[in-house]
């Protein structure tokens, strides 16, 4: 028994519709006004061009957006992801060149292309640090019964301090070349970061759609009480999503610090929490929780970065970009607000019925 809803309406109602439209809009503007945008060349054996930049830069944001989606779907929010990125980056840098006590690292130690800890342990430590942060948040929210915004605010404020603590207050530049692989490497011509995102996305997708976790997350976000009556543990679901979000932020931190070759407690991942929330909202997941789409959030992240790089291409200075970002958000807010939806539905529905489509 399939719905007799006109194809156009079904496409329109698919949650990916508006984000893809927005993305398409930006790309069209690029095509018209900056044709060089789409040029992809080959340099040093790998792909090169604005589009590649977009993907490369948006990788960390995509990762954080994936984690954030699940948190928002349960009706919560995680403000600490930026700080977790900083912590994760700091862990990496420090393990490469452990600074014991107050001994400042001399320049020749720092610039040696070597590491004091095997790479795989570094990666593991990074991920562990982030996951523990997520666990902390999750515990506060699920067992401590503290409001998500308040609970994650604490780590957001203190987290950067912790990152600084790890690096002893220094901005640590990384010289260990294998570490750069994550953010700068290429496999088969495509940036490594994209592979990482793809793997994490796939993992997350399988985790939430091929197990019952995704359904439970949505149910908890929609009606936690009914979900409890049905035998689902709201606490455990919430604990899971925050932990996973911390995990994603940790990977993002790895890629980011690898890309910029440094760990800077103050600036790593700055404003990432805000961008991640934006990406999720653009992707159509409501902040009150419920239905979510990982893919839509990834597109949301893509939109943010395509927009950013487009602005660069037009010569808009990096800092002035913020205003443009705000306009983007305004447009998104308006598009998704109840009024706009009803308005659009009225116009488009009327058009449909004029053509005599059965309903």
């Amino acid at each position, binding site marked *: 028994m399939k719905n007799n809803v006109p194809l156009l309406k079904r496409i329109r109602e698919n949650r990916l519709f508006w984000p893809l439209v927005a993305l398409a809009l930006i790309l069209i503007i690029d095509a018209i006004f900056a044709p060089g945008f789409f040029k992809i060349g080959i340099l040093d054996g790998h792909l090169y061009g604005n589009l590649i930049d977009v993907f490369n830069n948006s990788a960390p944001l995509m990762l954080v957006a994936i984690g954030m989606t699940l948190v928002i779907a349960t009706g919560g929010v995680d403000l600490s992801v930026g700080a977790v990125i900083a912590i994760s980056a700091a862990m990496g840098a420090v393990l490469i060149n452990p600074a014991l006590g107050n001994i400042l690292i001399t320049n020749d130690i720092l610039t040696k292309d070597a590491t004091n800890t095997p790479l795989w342990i570094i990666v593991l430590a990074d991920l562990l640090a982030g996951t523990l942060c997520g666990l902390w948040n999750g515990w506060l929210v699920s067992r401590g019964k503290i409001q998500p915004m308040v609970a994650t605010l604490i780590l957001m404020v203190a987290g950067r301090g912790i990152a600084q603590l790890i690096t002893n207050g220094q901005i640590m530049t990384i010289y260990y070349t294998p570490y750069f692989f994550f953010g700068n490497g290429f496999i088969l011509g495509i940036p490594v970061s994209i592979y990482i995102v793809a793997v994490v996305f796939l993992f997350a997708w399988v985790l939430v759609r091929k197990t*019952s976790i995704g359904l439970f997350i949505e149910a908890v976000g929609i009606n936690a009480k009914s979900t409890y009556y049905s035998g689902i543990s709201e606490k455990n679901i919430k604990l899971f999503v925050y932990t996973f979000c911390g995990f994603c932020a940790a990977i993002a931190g790895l890629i980011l610090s690898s890309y910029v070759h440094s760990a800077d407690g103050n600036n790593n991942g700055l404003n990432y929490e805000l961008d991640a929330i934006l990406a999720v909202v653009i992707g159509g997941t409501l902040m009150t929780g419920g239905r979510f789409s990982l893919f839509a959030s990834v597109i949301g992240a893509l939109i943010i970065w395509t927009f950013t790089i487009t602005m660069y291409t037009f010569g808009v200075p990096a800092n002035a970009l913020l205003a443009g970002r705000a306009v983007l958000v305004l447009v998104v807010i308006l598009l998704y607000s109840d009024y706009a939806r009803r308005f659009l539905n009225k116009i488009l529905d009327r058009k449909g019925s004029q053509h005599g489509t059965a309903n």
Partner: protein
Amino acid sequence: MINTKDFVLTMNGISKTFPGVNALENVEFSLKRGEIHALIGENGAGKSTLIKVLTGVEHPEAGSIEFDGKTVEVKSPQHAQEIGISTVYQEVNLCTNISVAENIMLGHEPHRFGSIDWKQLNAYARTALQRLSVEIDVSQPLGNYSIAIQQMVAIARSLEITSAKILILDEPTSSLDVTEANRLFDLMQKLKGEGIGIIFITHFLDQVYQVSDRITVLRNGKLVGTYATASLPRIELIAKMLGRSITDLDEVSKAKFTGEHKEGKKRLLEARGLGRAGSLEPFDIELYANEVVGIAGLLGSGRTEMANLIFGIDTPDKGSLTLNDRKVNHFSPLESLKNGIALCPEDRKAEGVVGELTIRENIILALQARFGWFKFLQTQKQYEIAEKYIRLLGISTPSPDQLVKNLSGGNQQKVILARWLATNPQVLILDEPTRGIDVGAKAEIQKLVLDLAEEGKSCVFISSELEEVLRTSHRVIVLRDHKKAAEYSGDVNDQTIIQTMAGNL
């Protein structure tokens, strides 16, 4: 001859429908000046809708309201308050963080030289409360006081802000103890003496008899009748609430009351002295396979509390529960689910339906919960299960992918029922499963319950409709005042049950 001047309020021919349900059908209601008029009926009878119409929250499709000698159209709660209809709800609609005096005067504070004159404000508040014979420190935050006092403050506010002609009290005594309730009643008598008409909505019949002058009974959206309290014996009142006539014995009253339920049947569940302070006194119950146990009792007698205890929503603080001869140590819905108990809850909107999910997802939800996070029901299987129950229960929908929030109340109830049936439980507790469902569907569900019992399950059927309890149950447990009052099997008719509910037996 009715002297219309005596009546401060007359509601005529009020009808109101919501999608799929007739909330009110041609209801009449009148209120005299200086009268305490009780409005009663079971859940779903239409009491709250009637009040919502009176206070402007809802607008009726038909009917008229005459208030204080004039025909009025109540546009909004604000408007109602302005013209003199004051309401105090069960959840006191005040702000607990500001002082008592402020709550009374908020929006009407006296000012001096442009700023709030606190002294004067407190004085006004004190006077307002004195009128209700309440003397408290009005400068303390409202939250410091008990619900009983908060209610008094709410009443004081509504009387203070406008010269109220009608005061509606919606379940005011639910959170009060006996002393506090009596205090409220004294206040009501005082206000009655001042000529204010009071509508008293409650499910406590004792209190109805203690304080009211007239009683109006609603049932299934229709008016059953309006009676002078003094001339309506309690037993008749209950009968009217349940839709029975005490002289009418020809109805289906002798159901399958076979006494052999115990022999040869497997005992599935046993509760001994199970109780929880504040919710249910210790009770014993035994559930066997192949039978339906009905639980009858008036609103507030503890029916849902009993269901919640057995299913593990609430943890008992006394007694024990044994399932299949194994003692239950941990009370939670998931535990019960794993042990083969299912509960179809009373409030389907808040406790059952997950509105934004599809029918299919709602149906398999509990089953999936039992399997846990990683043992995933394949989508194909999910559709199979969903479609099976859509057919079985006759859920009217074009597809299993419809969002449950778009279904009618009756269909929503069927979806929730399907959810629990899908878990193939041994014990199935149904709390008001037929509320808000059309007659045809009601019969379907009743038959289904009997069929399930036939298959070997134990069904617990809770309902405020005595008729259907009798029709479907093999034995009946009667609750009264949060206690198990009696258990009947064999030959029993509704008379006996009503008498038990009334406390005569």
